[in-house]
């Protein structure tokens, strides 16, 4: 199709060869995978690392004198350094492995439960994922701190004037996602961080949705905590990272008791191990951590600038095609957004569109995307969300748009 010709020099067809799953069929149709904001697919290079780990050097780390344990420990610690360099983290020990973004958030929330007192304030944004809201509600219940919410505007952006008004000397922690999972809005985290620091508060940024598209530099951002998940970045599920400024990581108490996080144990007193082990109790997801490192290498070999430019091209193309459909409304119209399109067509329920799209081989997400407050704001039950990755093509967007049209003709 002439309209679908790729104008950039990005060699997407070559890249697609790295992803075996893209060859499969769903309901007899070639798979079009547009649910990348939920989880990204895994390239062969990362799958090979997982197979190699279990085939050749599977062992517990940090405690064995034997060769396998040493090899596994080395590989795991090298992966930590890959993450450190990628996010420009000052020291490897500030690069903590977690089970994912939610775990990272809970480590910080749990740590702050020892710091906050009644009357302190936590600010979260209205664009949050559920997992971002619940730990803070629990924290407020426990400490008597007060939860404040930065409202959103109709275009799906944070109301920054309202944010200014919420900030005060009582603000102890601000919590915001770098990119909204439901709408794709890129939030002005630089401004939020600078203003929060002016009143003496700390900022935790959820980078889960940003990390597949934007290379965050935690030192340039001056962010206090930054959390990500491996499975959004072409890595496996069950592994993630928490970055924290050193002073904060020293100040926060350990999250869990167990192996690795202790220095000395007697029945009278246990002293905690230093960073990062203080927050890494028990046997970690060793293979996951190593594969996460390999995934970061894979994405960097393609290059985040090239990825962002190509994905933007896909976003613009898909937006134009979709808006030709009558009564289609896109939610989240920020000028600065990642390759996510959340939409509804007339009064058709998103679940119905998603069901027909699945029959046609197109995988999208439907529902409230764990961001019910956003859906309540727009007074809708949910949206259909298509999210693109650098391995998607304009031809796939054509298949997707035709499938949406077919669904609308059946359901309308």
């Amino acid at each position, binding site marked *: 199709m002439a309209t679908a010709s790729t104008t950039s020099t990005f060699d997407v067809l070559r890249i697609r060869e790295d992803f075996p799953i893209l060859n499969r069929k769903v309901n007899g149709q070639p798979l079009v995978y547009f649910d990348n904001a939920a989880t990204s697919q895994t390239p062969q290079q990362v799958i090979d690392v997982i197979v190699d780990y279990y085939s050749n050097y599977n062992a517990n780390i940090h405690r064995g004198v034997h060769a396998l344990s040493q090899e596994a420990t080395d590989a795991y610690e090298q992966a930590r350094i890959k993450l450190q360099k990628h996010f420009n983290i000052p020291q490897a020990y500030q690069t903590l492995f977690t089970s994912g973004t939610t775990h990272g958030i809970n480590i910080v929330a749990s740590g702050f439960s020892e710091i906050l007192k009644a009357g302190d304030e936590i600010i979260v944004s209205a664009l949050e994922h559920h997992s971002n809201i619940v730990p803070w509600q629990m924290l407020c219940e426990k400490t008597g701190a007060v939860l404040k919410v930065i409202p959103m505007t109709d275009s799906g952006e944070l109301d920054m004037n309202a944010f200014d008004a919420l900030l005060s000397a009582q603000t102890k922690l601000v919590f915001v996602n770098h990119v909204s999972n439901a709408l794709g809005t890129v939030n002005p985290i630089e401004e939020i961080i600078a203003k929060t620091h002016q009143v003496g508060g700390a900022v935790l940024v959820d980078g889960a949705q940003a990390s597949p598209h934007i290379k965050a530099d935690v030192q340039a951002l001056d962010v206090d905590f930054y959390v990500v998940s491996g499975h959004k970045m072409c890595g496996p599920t069950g592994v993630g990272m928490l970055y924290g400024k050193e002073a904060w990581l020293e100040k926060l108490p350990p999250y869990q008791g167990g192996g690795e996080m202790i220095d000395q144990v007697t029945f009278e007193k246990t002293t905690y191990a230093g960073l990062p082990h203080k927050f890494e109790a028990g046997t970690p997801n060793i293979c996951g951590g190593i594969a996460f490192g390999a995934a970061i290498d894979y994405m960097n070999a393609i290059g985040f600038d090239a990825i962002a430019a190509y994905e933007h091209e896909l976003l613009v193309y898909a937006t134009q095609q979709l808006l030709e459909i009558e009564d289609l409304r896109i939610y989240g119209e920020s000028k600065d957004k990642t390759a996510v399109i959340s939409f509804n067509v007339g009064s058709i329920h998103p679940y119905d569109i998603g069901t027909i799209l699945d029959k046609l081989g197109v995988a999208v997400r439907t529902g409230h995307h764990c961001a019910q407050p956003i859906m309540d704001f727009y007074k809708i039950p949910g949206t259909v969300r298509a999210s693109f990755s650098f391995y998607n093509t304009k031809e796939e967007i054509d298949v997707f748009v035709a499938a949406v049209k077919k669904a609308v003709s059946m*359901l309308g």
Partner: protein
Amino acid sequence: MSSIQEIQQEIIEEFEMFDDWMQRYEYMIELGKSLPLIDDKYKTDEYIIKGCQSKVWVHADFNEGNIEFTADSDAIITKGIIAILIRSFSNQPPQAILDADTSFIDKIGLKEHLSPTRANGLVSMIKQIKLYAVAYQAKAES
């Protein structure tokens, strides 16, 4: 009046007329549109079954030994399946409802809609239908 088994056999035969999934879905969507709507006074939180994806409302009345179900959903495909389930289970005595199963849904190629992972409220709706049957059975015996 036909038994649940006879009705389910009828539905299976109707769906056998279709060549592909698209025709089956178009028929189901039509059924959804023709579903007698639940009385608005029952479309409240008391009668709601919250799926993660779509909402379902179910209400039951007991008339002359039979349970009459009315239901609705905010999603039309869910509503189509509801129409099929209501046709099968409504205006039947409690014991017949308790004895019946939903395997006919597999036979008409719509099994995936009754999967709990679908989170559309239908699995809970069937449970609710059975619970109404248990309740009215107990009431009839007392």
